[in-house]
């Protein structure tokens, strides 16, 4: 008996697993894509000479 012989309700089992794979793959790819997009935006800004902290030097009282 093959391990992929899942009896009369195989469709339901496969559908469930496929749904999980699709949703999780979707989440992971979105997370990776989003991360790359933010990194690209950050790099673009840094290349244009925008500094991370506010360009104004007054940092008074901002650190508790």
């Amino acid at each position, binding site marked *: 008996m093959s391990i992929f012989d*899942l009896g009369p309700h195989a469709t339901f089992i496969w559908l*469930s697993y496929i749904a999980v794979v699709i949703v999780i793959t979707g*989440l992971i790819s979105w997370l990776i894509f989003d991360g790359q997009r933010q990194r690209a935006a950050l790099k673009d800004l840094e290349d244009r000479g925008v500094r991370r902290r506010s360009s104004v030097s007054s940092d008074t009282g901002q650190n508790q």
Partner: protein
Amino acid sequence: MQTLTQKLANPTRFMQLSGTMLPWIAGAAAVIIAYGLYLVFAVSPPDYQQGETVKIMYIHVPSAWLAMMAYGLVAVSSFGLLVFRHPLADVSAKAAVPIGAAFTFLALFTGSLWGKPMWGTYWVWDARLTSVLILFFLYLGLMALRSSMDDESTAAKLTAVLALVGVAILPIIKFSVDWWNTLHQPSTGFTSTVDPSLRVPLLIMALGFTLLFFAMHLKAMRNEILRRRVKAMRVADIAHRDGMSALSNPVAG
């Protein structure tokens, strides 16, 4: 634990720490889920009542568990935001909501697919499924509320209030749904009624899913921190440019 949360209050340190940890957690999740799938498909026997259909349980139960755990995480983060004003609390809450909602959806979807062979219909108003459905609505409410406001910090705090209201009311909802449908199965999961040969793969799958969740949550938090940095820099840049143009063209001021 206190010192750990304090350490994590510094986003730069969080980025370093999470950057090192992320590959390990993701790797561990992949290995454990792979081992769990091996157990599920190659080793574990069919259930004497449900036959092979029980294989759906190995993904349904971890999804349902994560649906609840993620809401708990959102609630704890919301508390951290409102009470301690922890700088990463909102990042954590915002990152956890869509992932939690996705697992809630999976719990509902797999639950309904599991229901068809067992009950003969895709959806029965079983107490557990109904509670998870209402949990899904709570997630939708959190996402909709956050997206309905332009000011991110107001949206964050209001969403946190709603998350805490949800936590306060969820036990009552659970209780009333159970009351409403007393003819439900005892909660499937880590109880002794599940045969040990089924329980080991289930626990392993649950562990793998949990690690997967934390890997995704960390990644989403990192993305959110980057997004806020980008936004802060854009605001600074716009101000800088605006200042320049105001200097060069006094009439515009």
